[in-house]
């Protein structure tokens, strides 16, 4: 009898790869993947805790890379960064389809798994692009440009290079307040960091005096570049959804 097996992993990408290892090793057909902190609901299932093992993860990853093109690799990584509960299943079904298939499956967009992964990639990409747009740096008294964000998905790894390249001559921090980690650029390299207490967007005392003035100028500009007789609030909100407003200088 194929009892449902629940694989519990630590939430890391390597951990997920180890789940795949176990599925192939024991030829598990009926499974469910959950992160450690997610609730378990099935009474009649067998729980298996998956230990993250670098070597096994690497073996699986090499195996995937042998079969997968650039697009597939990107799809898998981005779907993982979406952190959507249960998305692990799509990733694993995709990997299985990839391994089992003789031809290149990347373009088979009417296949439900490919389709779903493609949709997730689209969602994550949209959020990545939004963060490139919606990050608002504020100049701290110690000369660092700081921005807090709360992206829907874990996009910091995806925007790192963009900001490193663009702001090569200023120190900056982009901090994901939802996931409580950030990126810090020290004029040489970008590193991950955690703050004890992340600055609030409207805590004026930690910003340079000039900062407040430039924010005022930006708000003025935002107001005056609008054409009243073309007002289109629906379109405005579609482009700048309300949940992002609290970190947007022009909307504060």
């Amino acid at each position, binding site marked *: 009898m194929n009892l449902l097996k629940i694989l519990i992993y630590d939430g890391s990408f390597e951990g997920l790869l180890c789940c795949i290892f176990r599925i192939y090793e024991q030829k598990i057909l009926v499974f469910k993947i959950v992160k450690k902190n997610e609730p378990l609901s099935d009474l009649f299932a067998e729980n298996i805790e998956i230990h993250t093992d670098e070597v096994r993860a690497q073996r699986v990853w090499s195996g995937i890379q042998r079969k997968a093109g650039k697009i597939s690799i990107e799809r898998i990584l981005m779907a993982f960064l979406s952190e959507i509960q249960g998305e692990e299943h799509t990733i694993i079904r995709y990997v299985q389809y990839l391994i089992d298939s003789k031809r290149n499956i990347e373009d088979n967009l009417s296949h439900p798994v490919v389709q779903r992964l493609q949709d997730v990639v689209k969602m994550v990409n949209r959020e990545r692009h939004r963060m490139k747009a919606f990050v608002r*740096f504020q100049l701290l008294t110690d000369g660092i440009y700081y921005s807090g964000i709360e992206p829907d998905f874990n996009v910091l790894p995806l925007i790192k290079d963009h900001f490193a390249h*663009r*702001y090569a001559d200023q120190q900056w921090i982009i901090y994901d307040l939802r996931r409580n980690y950030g990126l810090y650029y020290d004029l040489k390299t970008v590193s991950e960091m955690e703050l004890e207490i992340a600055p609030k967007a409207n805590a004026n005392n930690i910003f340079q005096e000039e900062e407040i003035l430039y924010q005022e100028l*930006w708000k003025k500009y935002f107001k005056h570049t609008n054409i009243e007789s073309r007002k289109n609030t629906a379109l405005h909100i579609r482009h700048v959804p309300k949940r992002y407003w609290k970190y947007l200088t022009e909307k504060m």
Partner: protein
Amino acid sequence: MNWEKIVDKLSILSDAAKYDVSCASSGSKRSNTNKGLGDARGMGICHTYTEDGRCVSLLKILLTNHCIFDCAYCTSRKSNDIKRAAFTVQEVVDLTINFYRRNYIEGLFLSSGIFKDADFTMERLVSIAKKLRTEHKFNGYIHLKAIPGASKELMNLAALYADRLSVNIELPTIEGLKELAPDKNRADMERPMNDLKTGIQIYKEEKKKSRFTPLFAPAGQSTQMVVGASGESDMQILYTAKYFYQKYHLKRVYYSGYVPISTDTRLPAIGTAVPMVRENRLYQTDWLVRFYGFKVEEIVNPNFPDLELDKDPKLAWALRHPEFFPVDINTAELWKIYRVPGIGVQSALKIVKARNFQKLRLDHLKQLGIATNRAQYFIRTASPMNFQAELPSKGIEQLVLSNYHGKYKNIVQQQLSLF
């Protein structure tokens, strides 16, 4: 800096610049290789959107709204009794750098009223771009408005510092220009365009020989015209656009629906609606020509001089050409799929990829995320009997439009009921 004064100037000079619709910041090749500030490769970014739903990508300001010209449609015209202001070179530089550092903008779009003469004004614009590039190692996007009549030397200098240059042709016809902008003439606008075109070609050739050739207007040139101020037909507008696209290899032509700002009797009265739907239809046509393989003459011609407001130009064309349909999405060449109403470039590309794996039915299209509410009347799929070819063209039109929930439905009905 005197902040109150700057706030004042910024208000006046952004207000006066906002009718320039271009906000593109894409298409340049300027990369941050000198550890400076900014990067203008690849895709543009809209950092925010105004409450009218337009993208804000660049700091779009006038250097000054003092102007010796008296163009009827322009809010900065000499005879208009408004507050005047002028930035200094340093003020524009500081604003650009500080906005950019905070990730508010992709760069600067700088235009100006004409004070003294064309070259005097152009020189100031160029000096700002030069200062940004050389003193601040700024690699963000710079769009300079070229002043009609500016000398070739200044245009060349401008192109060495800016990513894009544009000369506005202002009105679609020469007659309209004479009537509403008597101080300007077409020849003064075309000369700098031609200089730029030549320059871009020369640098392109040089680039093939040496990779150290400096950038020369890497994002090309564009232009803009006001729509609905001087009574032209859509055909006149689009034929003019075609002329400029072809003759000067423009990257973009922008169409700006006239916003009534004057009591001048030569112009639509204040309170007249901005022709937003018409503007949108013109852009749709522009896209059909640039990306979908249509010829302008297929969309508008002496028999059909104006675009229909209640349907997009591709649908209008399709209804006039029932003999072209149905297009079989499982076998048709890509260019034919491009012509199906409701199917865009991305969707068409998805279709030709996906059909390698199986015969596509209507529900496959839905799975691919392709809207079929309009397309279904114009295609044949592997679903049995889905094409409603027996319907006369008028029947399809009614079917399509009855299912139409486009963003302009209300506005279209309002604007149509005016006639």
